[in-house]
């Protein structure tokens, strides 16, 4: 082959440019805030995380996981071997054959990528991403031919000027995409940023089949500093590894496909949000974005930079307030990006610095601050619902096996029916329980999701102070939001009130009682039943089985909805979304009820008072909505004495 020096020179050039790009990109991330991450341990764990945690998510789509394994694996192996064979010039037929094999693997994988891009679903981004399969084919094909002489298949020096020119062109294209583009912002950026994102992820607990869903507390001392900012105003206010996480996005749009706000036509698309964050961290506009827009908004008008306020030009605050914090996007994301964290971080700035919580937000927050409940009821009326229940108060008994966390459902007449049902079940099973009565405060869930972490922290510390006065081994609540706060978010405030205490959702607790035989149930005969997984019970806490087992113990065969379990669709009631009430084309609760209707169920079993309220808000005729405790209490077998 002619120009012997040419291809090694090109490879070196591409690699040098790649390194320069990498340094530039790393500096963009380093503009973010510091975060306590063990860098070495993260890097060591990274391959394992790729092969297990990330691959497990990709594996949900078998086609894509096989395609990616072939293409990505083939590429990584090829890249190493190309350096050995073509750059260092190691003359080994074995290496050359290995390189050809890995290139062939990559080529086959790329063919499947190509096939998928022939008629792509609307959720995936087009634009430069449509070029990627061709670039992959060019890279794999050109290097394959280039390696033939080294493998001894073709004699050295085969081919004329034309072939060399064509090959050189393809190699420049291929390496431009795969080496240069990897660190300079092309589609292949996902490999570089994604690998490091896995290593330095802000939620290290997520790996190894772990779960980490509690929001991180805001450092409130910033409120007293001149120039301090609570929450995220500018891209550089994110932690550096959050910025890195945004860069890992592959724009597959799995998040977009499951986002309830996007489906409802509210101006939120998690994929676009992450891409806007990339625009923010790198500076520029969203003109090159080639995916679905925020519903009702045009692409191309967003402008941002690392030190520009995000909600002034880059993002409409309505986008942030459309989120129900259901975590469906996070659950689907193959790159394990944390959309909800980013959204709440930016909400924190809007609420705690700008005072711009929309619609009823300000009023609800004011109420929570003044009365410790979102509707501004007299704090002394918290136990009025139980006037006829004769509940033991912790203040009197000081000690009980179970502390029943009543939650703000105490103020709502519909939720009170759930509370009464649960109390009746506990009494039937002779559970030793007590309530806090008026000493209980709002758990802080709504305040925190609305961005008011100051109020959340105040509620959490005051609740913990009350809890620390009493002895109990379990806390049980009928509200998954309170459950999540108590279980996952109250640990950050240096209290040992919950040490050794098991926090349980009432369905888990009731299931224990039923399995132990403490509750005798008759079989349910009320027709077809489906079950709606509350986000804060399922995705936030991984409890999918206990409610189902409870239903089965009444002889119910659950008619599952297509979107159930970890893919359950939100009812629309989380994250303060009903309070901020951003207009869309449809209501999320209506869409969820359509899901219910397709199963033909006459009753939808729920484990959350918020879901109950949202689903019952759907106009009739529709299936009945009942909390599992309410269904159980109707099936309670009366004991004969």
């Amino acid at each position, binding site marked *: 082959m002619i120009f012997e020096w040419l291809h090694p020179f090109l490879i070196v050039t591409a690699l040098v440019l790649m390194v320069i790009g990498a340094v530039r990109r790393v500096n963009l991330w380093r503009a973010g805030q510091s975060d306590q991450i063990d860098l070495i341990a993260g890097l060591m764990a990274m391959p394992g995380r790729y092969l297990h945690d990330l691959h497990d998510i990709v594996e949900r789509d078998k086609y894509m996981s096989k395609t990616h394994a072939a293409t990505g694996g083939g590429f990584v192996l090829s890249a190493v071997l190309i350096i050995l064979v073509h750059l260092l010039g190691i003359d080994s037929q074995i290496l050359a054959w290995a390189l050809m094999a890995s290139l062939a693997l990559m080529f086959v994988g790329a063919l499947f990528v190509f096939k998928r891009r022939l008629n792509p679903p609307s959720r995936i981004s087009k634009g430069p991403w449509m070029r990627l399969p061709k670039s992959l084919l060019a890279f794999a094909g050109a290097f394959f031919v280039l390696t033939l002489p080294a493998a001894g298949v073709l004699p050295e020096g085969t081919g004329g000027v034309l072939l060399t020119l064509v090959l050189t062109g393809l190699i420049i294209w291929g390496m431009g995409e795969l080496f240069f583009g990897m660190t300079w912002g092309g589609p292949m950026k996902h490999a570089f940023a994604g690998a490091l994102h896995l290593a330095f992820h802000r939620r290290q607990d997520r790996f190894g089949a772990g779960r980490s869903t509690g929001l991180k507390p805001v450092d*409130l001392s*910033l*409120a*007293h*500093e*001149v120039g*301090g*900012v*609570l929450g995220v105003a500018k891209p550089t206010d994110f932690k550096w590894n959050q910025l890195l996480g945004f860069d890992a996005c592959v724009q597959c749009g799995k998040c977009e496909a499951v986002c309830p706000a996007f489906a409802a036509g509210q101006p939120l698309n998690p994929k676009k949000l992450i891409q806007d964050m990339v625009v923010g961290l790198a500076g520029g506009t969203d003109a090159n974005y080639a995916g679905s827009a925020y519903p009702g908004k045009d692409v191309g008008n967003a402008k941002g930079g690392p030190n520009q306020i995000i909600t002034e030009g880059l993002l409409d605050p309505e986008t942030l307030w459309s989120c129900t914090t259901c975590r469906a996007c996070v659950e689907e994301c193959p790159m394990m990006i944390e959309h909800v964290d980013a959204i709440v971080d930016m909400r924190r700035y809007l*609420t*705690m*610095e*700008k*005072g*711009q*919580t929309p619609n009823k*937000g*300000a009023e609800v*927050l*004011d109420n929570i*601050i*003044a*009365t*410790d409940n979102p509707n*501004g*009821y*007299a*704090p002394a009326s918290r136990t009025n619902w139980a006037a006829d229940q004769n509940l033991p108060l912790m203040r009197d008994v000081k000690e009980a096996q179970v502390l029943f966390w009543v939650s703000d459902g105490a103020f709502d007449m519909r939720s009170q029916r759930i509370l009464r049902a649960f109390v009746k079940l506990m009494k039937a099973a002779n559970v030793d329980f007590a309530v806090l009565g008026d000493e209980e405060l709002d758990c802080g869930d709504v305040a925190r999701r609305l961005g*008011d972490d*100051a*109020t959340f922290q105040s509620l959490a510390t005051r609740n913990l102070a009350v809890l620390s006065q009493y002895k109990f081994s379990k806390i049980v609540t009928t509200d998954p939001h309170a459950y999540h706060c108590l279980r996952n978010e109250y640990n950050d405030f240096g209290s040992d009130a919950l040490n050794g205490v098991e926090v349980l959702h009432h369905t888990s607790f009731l299931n224990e009682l039923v399995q132990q035989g403490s509750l005798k149930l008759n079989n349910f005969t009320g027709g077809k039943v489906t079950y709606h997984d509350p986000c804060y019970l399922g995705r936030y806490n991984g409890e999918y089985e206990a409610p189902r087992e409870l239903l089965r113990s009444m002889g119910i065969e659950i008619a599952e909805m297509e979107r159930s379990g970890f893919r359950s669709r939100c009812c629309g009631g989380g994250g303060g979304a009903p309070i901020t009430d951003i207009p869309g084309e449809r209501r999320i609760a209506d869409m969820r009820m359509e899901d219910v209707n397709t199963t033909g169920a006459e009753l939808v079993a729920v484990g959350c008072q918020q879901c109950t309220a949202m689903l019952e808000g759907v106009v009739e005729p529709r299936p009945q909505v009942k909390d599992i405790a309410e269904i159980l209490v109707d099936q309670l077998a009366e004991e004969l004495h």
Partner: protein
Amino acid sequence: MQPKQSIAATDKDVKIVSLISVGKHPQSGRVRRADQDSRAVELGMKLLDTGDSTRGDSLVVLHAGDPKEPGLRGYAGMGLNSVRVLELDPAADAVAPLGEYLQQFAPDIVLTGVRAEGGESSGMVPYQLAEKLGWPIVPRVADIISVEAGVAEVLQALPRGQRRSLKIRLPFIASIDSAAQDARQSAYGPASRAMMDIEVVDSSTDQLRESWSEAPAKKRPKRLKVIKAKTAAERFKAATAKSQGEGGKVMQNESAAEQAQAIFDLLLEEGVLR
């Protein structure tokens, strides 16, 4: 549509003072920013927001009492850089030091709430200040439409959503009705960061008040309303129509002396003056 506020460019810089007190939440009794006072701050901030950066209009948010009082932070969170506090014992009489301060500071408009949410809650502060300063007082203001050539156009809130438009020469005191625009949200960051601009003042202890004991106000029993209306139209009228005052007379053409005499006679008759 309410007309947009304006301070005319021809006018000199306007100095506004909003007086704030420590509020009390009606359900929990917890300290907060008082509802009407925060509306007074809101109105002050809105008047300043003319969009004309060459103007030197200013708003001073003023409190007489304890500068460490957490309730004041609620006002600061509306976006104030500082709150001016005349430091005195919260139990002391605030009118004298406030009056002296205002006399010296000479603002054009003083905005207050109608009455405080705690303490005496007599609603007398604006009147006593007006007396001390010799300024007119406009009670129960819903909005200030414009300030032009030393005259303010003010909307006064009347019962049943009615408004009365008044023109008042500066300076004046206005007490802000609950019909005025809601106060903007108070944000934690600015609330914590705002400066308390403290001025220590002499004050005299309110001797009378020391002997009082405070108790939560009880709602007076309501007289049962006998519905006489027979038709929906009558009920609608009863619910919406302006209640016509019985008696009284309209004096428009008489001389000022005659009008004053008539008011004087009425006050004597009602036992206000003795």
